[in-house]
């Protein structure tokens, strides 16, 4: 009862913030259309064997969903700036319910982003086997778990005026090192750094749409380590965060 009512209003207010939605959903979508639409008849991009619409859809899926999950941090920082975290702390709301609601809201944002990009991709001629759509979506959702925790962590550590640049920078660095924008190669220091980041594996998840096979044990280990580590830190940050703004 607590969880459903509380979560329902949390979702309602997130999806009511039009300015936030325009940027959160509009940005990846517009970027995708701007890049992919003029090249929609390119069927062998950079001799990769992939069409431009598929290639860029996959790239923006990673970027867009990563942003969607991390944006929880911006919302939390805004709530903290008006002291709402303190108000919540004097209610019986458990940290578990608080986290579940924040994570669920992040996933709702990510799912809308995925849906919009799939739809745009479809319009631009992307056709994949049903099994690939399913497999790709499923892996992306799993790959987003560490980002859910990272968003909450940053929301509780940063202030409303610093969280914007911090999230933007984090996304940019994780996207760059994870190989969202261009492949990071198969050897070398950059590759090793990339493989230790959750964004790299998120890219691998999305690459199922371009014939990739997802990830093996290595990917699972990195993702679980990030998820567990970020969750522990986020929980600690949340519990400590009772000061006056």
């Amino acid at each position, binding site marked *: *009862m*607590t969880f459903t*009512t*509380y979560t329902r*209003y*949390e979702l*309602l*207010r*997130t999806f*009511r*913030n039009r300015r936030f939605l325009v940027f959160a959903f509009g940005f990846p979508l517009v970027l995708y259309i701007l890049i992919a639409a003029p090249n929609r008849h390119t069927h062998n991009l950079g001799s990769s064997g992939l069409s431009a619409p598929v290639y860029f859809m996959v790239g923006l899926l990673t970027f867009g969903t990563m942003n969607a999950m991390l944006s929880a941090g911006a919302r939390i920082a*805004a*709530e903290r700036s*008006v*002291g*709402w975290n*303190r*108000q919540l*702390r*004097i*209610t*019986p*709301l*458990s940290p578990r319910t608080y986290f579940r609601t924040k994570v669920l809201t992040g996933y709702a944002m990510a799912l809308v982003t995925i849906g919009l990009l799939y739809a745009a991709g479809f319009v631009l001629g992307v056709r994949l086997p049903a099994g690939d759509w399913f497999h790709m979506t499923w892996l992306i959702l799993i790959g987003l778990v560490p980002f859910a925790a990272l968003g909450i962590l940053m929301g509780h550590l940063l202030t409303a005026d610093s969280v914007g640049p911090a999230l933007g920078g984090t996304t940019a660095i994780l996207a760059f090192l994870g190989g969202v924008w261009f492949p990071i190669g198969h050897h070398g220091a950059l590759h090793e750094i990339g493989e230790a980041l959750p964004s790299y594996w998120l890219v691998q998840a999305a690459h199922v749409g371009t014939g990739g096979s997802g990830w093996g044990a290595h990917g699972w280990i990195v993702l679980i380590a990030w998820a567990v580590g970020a969750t522990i830190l986020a929980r600690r940050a949340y519990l400590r965060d*009772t*000061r*006056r*703004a």
Partner: protein
Amino acid sequence: MIETLENVTTAAVGVTLHGLTKSFVGEHGTVQAVRGVDVSIDAGETVALLGPNGAGKSTTVDMMLGLLQPDAGSVRLFGGSPREAVASGRVGAMLQTGSLLRDLSVRELITMVASLYPQPLGVDETISLTGIEEIADRMTQKLSGGETQRARFAIALVSNPDLLVLDEPTVAMDVEARRAFWTTMRAFAARGRTVMFATHYLEEADAYADRVVLMANGRVVADGPPTEIKAMVGGRRIRATLPGAHLFELESLPGVTHAEQRGEAVILSCSDSDAAIRALLARFPNASDLEITGAGLEDAFVELTGKEDAE
């Protein structure tokens, strides 16, 4: 309801603050915000925590609610820790600072908060109890300062708490809203609930509390019925130009508690300014430029704490 009445008649302990101490490290070194506060509040009592800004009221309230860990001392709410009392939904509070979650109507936000408590008041009941019908369907970010305060009160109240804590609740409210606010608070207290409110207005403490705990400089300097506290800090001051008068003579006048010289003028602190002014004029017909003012709370506190520190 029966349970609550029993609580009142047996005077069960609601709140116990024991030896609470808290320091903050700031730009100008360590500031001792609270220096050993002992207060015990029975269930069903309405207690005002009165003091000037910077007295340590909000720090005390934060420690009471478990938002701040005391350096030393302990807090018990209904025999348990603040965390336990909060988790079981027995505490409702309106903090000093803070606003509302945006992108929800007042009614929606109250409903959202109510869902967190085991036995909340009805949402409509809360709205009518706090008299906020006309803003209930407005978005929280569209409210004025005073309206926000009233909505925040509704949010504290919907929890249907055994202990209601209000930290400077009437700041930003106009006269009308203040009166409505206190009426609601009294009605709620009359249900046998424990209420503790922090304020720096003597009139509020005097009018709405059963008991006043007076704080200054991080300490409790007085604790008693409002009339007693009012007599201590609510005195008036007489200022007069009166060359050549002896302070001890002035201090012996009826109604005068303290006299001091400022150049040609004297300032008399009075417990009864009516008696004092009559006696003053009878004794010193040459006294001129008379002024009677309400003594500022701050001055009264300085005097009280000055004495305390000298002991």
